[in-house]
């Protein structure tokens, strides 16, 4: 990962670390109210999958996400699902073109720590990145490549009330994972995933998000958010990926206001 990308992740995580200093103490399991949210926006994906090409590809496209956070007994449980689709081009050189489809789902199980504005626990995530690579050859051969991960690692979430708005910050770090990475592309005779157990540092990653939610009514709020996810898979055919999203959406509260 480049210095620039590393700095980006560090800044996002630093934001998370600094958040506790400015939160107000209140009693609840989730840092934010129980709510469901749906958002859509634009994302930028940068990735380099050596099984497809030695080059880095980049593109922007549609992104959508939906999720919810709920108090469940003594725990704060969050679920989310994301989808994105975008055309990609090589950042430099002559390397054909790609179309990437990302889909992911996550389940966070958190518990309040220090005060109710911060919760920490574990995140279970499943992510799939399917890349259709059209080679720059005479017949424009197209091959499909796949990186699928099911990962488990620590997660933390914080919520900062700001007058009539709220800033939610979250981050997670996969430590152990099952990884399916198509070594030579996916073909019809063997398109089932072959998951292999991997752990840090073979698979390294981080995910962070900052959402600002402004309450519109008692039950509904408008959201603006930015999220970043970085992944590095050090296989014989290594993968580097960085995806960023800017999302706008609405959140509907399922519990009383906080």
């Amino acid at each position, binding site marked *: *990962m*480049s210095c*620039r*990308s590393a*700095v*980006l992740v560090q*800044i*996002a995580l630093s*934001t998370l670390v600094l958040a506790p200093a*400015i939160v107000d103490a209140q009693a609840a399991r989730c840092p934010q109210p129980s709510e469901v949210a749906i958002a859509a926006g634009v994302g*930028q994906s*940068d*990735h*380099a999958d050596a099984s497809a*090409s*030695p*080059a*880095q590809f*980049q593109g922007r496209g549609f992104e959508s996400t939906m999720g919810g956070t709920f108090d469940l007994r003594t725990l704060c449980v969050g679920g989310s699902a994301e989808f994105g689709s975008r055309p990609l081009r090589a*950042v*430099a*050189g*002559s*390397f*054909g073109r790609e179309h990437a489809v990302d889909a992911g789902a996550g389940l966070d199980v958190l518990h309040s720590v220090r005060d109710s504005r911060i919760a920490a626990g574990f995140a279970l995530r499943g992510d799939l990145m399917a890349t259709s690579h059209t*080679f*720059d*050859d*005479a017949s424009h*051969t197209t*091959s499909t490549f796949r990186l699928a991960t099911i990962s488990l690692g620590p997660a933390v979430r914080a919520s*900062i*009330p*700001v*007058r009539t*708005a709220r*800033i939610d910050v979250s981050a997670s770090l996969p430590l152990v994972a099952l990884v399916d990475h198509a*070594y*030579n*592309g996916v*073909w*019809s*005779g*063997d398109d089932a995933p*072959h998951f292999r157990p991997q752990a840090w540092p073979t698979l390294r990653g981080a995910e962070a998000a*900052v959402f*600002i939610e402004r309450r519109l009514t008692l039950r509904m709020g408008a959201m603006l958010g*930015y999220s*970043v996810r970085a992944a590095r898979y050090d296989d*014989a*055919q290594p993968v*580097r*990926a*960085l995806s*960023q999203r*800017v999302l706008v959406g609405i959140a509907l509260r399922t519990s009383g206001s906080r």
Partner: protein
Amino acid sequence: MMSKTARALGAAVMMLAAACADPTLVATPGTSNGALFDAVWSQTDLQYSMFALKHVDWDSVGRVMRPRALAATSDAELARLLGDMLETLRDRHVSLSTSVNATPIAYRTASDSQPSGFNATLIDHVYLTPATSHSTEHLSYGLAGPGVGYVRIPSFTGSGWANELDDALTALNDPAHLIIDVRDNLGGDDELAIALAGRFADRRRVYGYVPVRNGPSHDDFTPEIEQAVQPAGRHANSAVVVLTNRHVYSSAEDFVLALRELPNVTIVGDTTGGSSGKPITRELANGWTFTVSTWIEYDLERRPIEDAGVAPAIVVRAQPSDVSRGVDRAMNRALEMAGAAP
């Protein structure tokens, strides 16, 4: 206080988005002679499937060829050297292309350039009843005698045209005997070839096995994956003779291999070319592309198809003078088997 914090965080978000407009995840691949050579050598090293089968010491090849590549003084010379390196694999599916319009630099044997003794025009003019002879975009068919249908499939390139064979079988009105001619078929799309073979299958039948390269060591392979043909499209009940020769390659060999396992099919002609690797395309930073084989294909007896080819049940070799004499020996034999005198 909080408002300032919110503004600061908002500003941080904007800065992050702006800062990451063009993150660099990997170094841009180079275009120097050394970088291009290393890319070809290392990607082949990582992905090629038949080093052991071909008895090739790839490290040694790299050591010998790299200094010569570094000393190349032109793109043409470098391309020739990279082509020479890839040709040490003696694999027709391994090739280097320097542009979309350029003829790929690829391994060829002497037999590849020898006349095959097959002439499609001869078949059309001498063997097929003119009134029954038709062509679609991808195949030709007609009657070669009473109750003897003939279908020529010159290539398996493209996809989605398997229904043309259904139409041909319908037009031929389910003949008792059917000659499927794939001579000089250089291959194309595997899935299409097996979908076409499925027209003759009575049930799912395994016809081979393929381990696929899946790791950095030259002997890293997936478990053997079954290759099977199963009924598809319009079923042909005919007794089938498949005509083959040395110029049948790749997915056309898959087609022959699959049909060979069917009880109603007899393979007649010469052994196929023996080019069975499933190629994947790789790209170089200067716009060149190359391909490498990624699997080893075995028949049911675990014999590799590469170099050996698929042997016919009845060997009929064409002679150089056949075409000029207006004779097609394999066709004659197929007609004899169908009880129709040539």
